């Protein structure tokens, strides 16, 4: 994948970008560029610093150190100018519950100094776009989670932004709602809107992002397209072996007795199964059988970003 940042000025440009709250470092000297028209993702566990980064880009959180420009402008001095061209979908649905669905969009357009008529025109168009036209005059509160999310997305588009910031756009939504949101975001991307999003869903990152960074403990630990990351950090396929736990045996690994030795790039032992990272899962499975291994179940699958993610950020739970 070519990086258009070389030819055009990046929409977001960060070098050594740092955010500290007291002694706690939320974002630790990260570098990245987001090119126009690109869909760029921040992937990482909770507390990795994704939201802090997004808030700095959104100009609602002053940077502690480093440089950050958005549209080539400094957020400390041109906040209003930047925000005029920015669409923001925050993590929580901060809708105005005292207003109706349509009014939420109308007044948001007014915050951007749109004329009432223009604001109304765009609001109606966007409600159509996110399939909420029939709910126009309803209160916000009774809407489902998916509808609220779509409404927030519609709201973020009121100023026809060239850059859209989405903080966990589909967290907490059911599968149908997620796919609808993805579909709308994909259409925006096709129209040339730059997308910058955070997620901890691997499938979301694979679906939407041209390029992504993996963040962990305030730092960027990997950069690339989903495919590049998979190629770089894991093998093409993963073989998952499950063993029946025999009554007299306490340790599964006793089964294997080094029988997988030399077959794979990497072997990971989990409490319930063994993961074998390899280019050809079928072949390894066959060899293992020949060597006398008798797993209860065998699964060969393509590696995913999830494997990359777990490899880079570890399996232990981050609280």
């Amino acid at each position, binding site marked *: 994948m070519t990086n258009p940042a070389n030819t055009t000025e990046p929409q977001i440009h960060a070098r050594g970008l740092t955010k500290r*709250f007291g002694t706690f470092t939320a974002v630790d000297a990260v570098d990245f560029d987001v090119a126009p028209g690109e869909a760029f993702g921040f992937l990482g566990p909770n507390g990795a610093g994704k939201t802090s980064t997004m808030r700095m880009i*959104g100009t*609602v*959180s*002053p940077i502690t150190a480093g440089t950050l420009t958005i549209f080539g402008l400094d957020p400390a001095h041109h*906040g*209003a*100018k930047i*925000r*005029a061209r*920015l669409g*923001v979908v*925050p993590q*929580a649905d*901060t*809708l*105005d*519950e*005292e*207003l109706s669905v349509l*009014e939420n969009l*109308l*007044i*948001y357009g*007014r*915050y*951007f*100094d749109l004329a009432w008529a223009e604001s109304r025109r765009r609001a109606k168009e966007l409600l159509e776009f996110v399939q909420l036209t029939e709910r126009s005059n309803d209160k916000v509160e009774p809407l489902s989670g998916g509808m609220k999310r779509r409404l927030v997305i519609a709201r973020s588009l009121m*100023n026809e932004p060239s850059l859209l910031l989405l903080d966990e756009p589909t967290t907490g939504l059911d599968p149908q709602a997620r796919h609808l949101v993805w579909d709308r975001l994909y259409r925006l991307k096709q129209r040339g809107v730059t997308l910058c999003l955070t997620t901890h869903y691997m499938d979301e990152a694979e679906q939407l992002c041209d390029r992504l960074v993996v963040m962990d403990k305030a730092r960027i630990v990997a950069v690339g397209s989903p495919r590049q990351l998979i190629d770089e950090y894991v093998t093409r396929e993963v073989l998952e072996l499950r063993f029946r736990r025999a009554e007299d045996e306490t340790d599964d690994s006793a089964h294997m007795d080094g029988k997988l030795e030399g077959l794979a790039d990497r072997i990971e032992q989990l409490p319930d199964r063994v993961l074998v990272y390899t280019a050809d899962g079928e072949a390894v499975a066959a060899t293992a059988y020949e060597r006398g291994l008798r797993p209860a179940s065998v699964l060969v699958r393509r590696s995913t970003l999830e494997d990359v993610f777990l490899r880079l950020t570890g399996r232990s739970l981050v609280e």
Partner: protein
Amino acid sequence: MVGIRRLGTTVAFRPRHVVERNLLVYRHTFMVILSGFFEPLFYLFSMGYGVGSLIGNVQLSDGRSVPYAVFIAPALLASSAMNGAIYETSNNFFFKLKYAKLYDTIITTPMSLLDVARGEILWAMMRGGLYAVGFVVVIVVLGALGQPLVLSPLALLGFPAALVVCYAFAGAGMAATTFVRKWRDFDYMQLVLMPMFLFSGTFYPIDAYPPLLQAFVQCTPLYRGVHLIRAFTTGMLDPAMAIDLVYLLLMGTVGLAITSRRLGRLLLS
């Protein structure tokens, strides 16, 4: 509510959008706002005429003896301006700030924190101003019915004066609310507002107090507001009105400055 057009671009007065938002909300429940207009009227009738019947006349500081209703009418106008401003900038503002997260949303747009603070003050002044207009209308109607509540045509200036009172209390109220952490903290605000309402020369002249207490009361904002408006309605102009004006304008402006600083601290982390 107009943007200033200059060289084809619109330089908008952004705080108005906050007012527009509040108007959209209250479109559905305008009764709540409208009903606030009756409170000073009820007080006027009950205290002015009811208690007035027990009291008879009261002496103004220039020695004129006037019916009790004439004495408290301007004070009730000032108090209702204060209350209108406080309604909006205490509980309502706190709800929008802490629960509805309204301003977290607004700051993702080109609106600034100062726009937010100015907009909310403007709104509070509109609400207080509405009550003041209503009150002035009642005064005029009663005057026409042979129950004069004002002694001078300058009473019309009571309206802008009430707006100044609104501005002062809206600014201070909002600044105070940015320090509030939980609903119960508003009790402390009441602990300041209630004695002010009762003791600021609202219901009786402050000559009754010992000199030291008088001096103290004269330093409170509601006293200054009552003094200013009463000066207009009784036509009893005096130089101290300049103090009233400066005091109240300063109070609102300092409140505004504190508010936008505090909002920065609360919202831009």
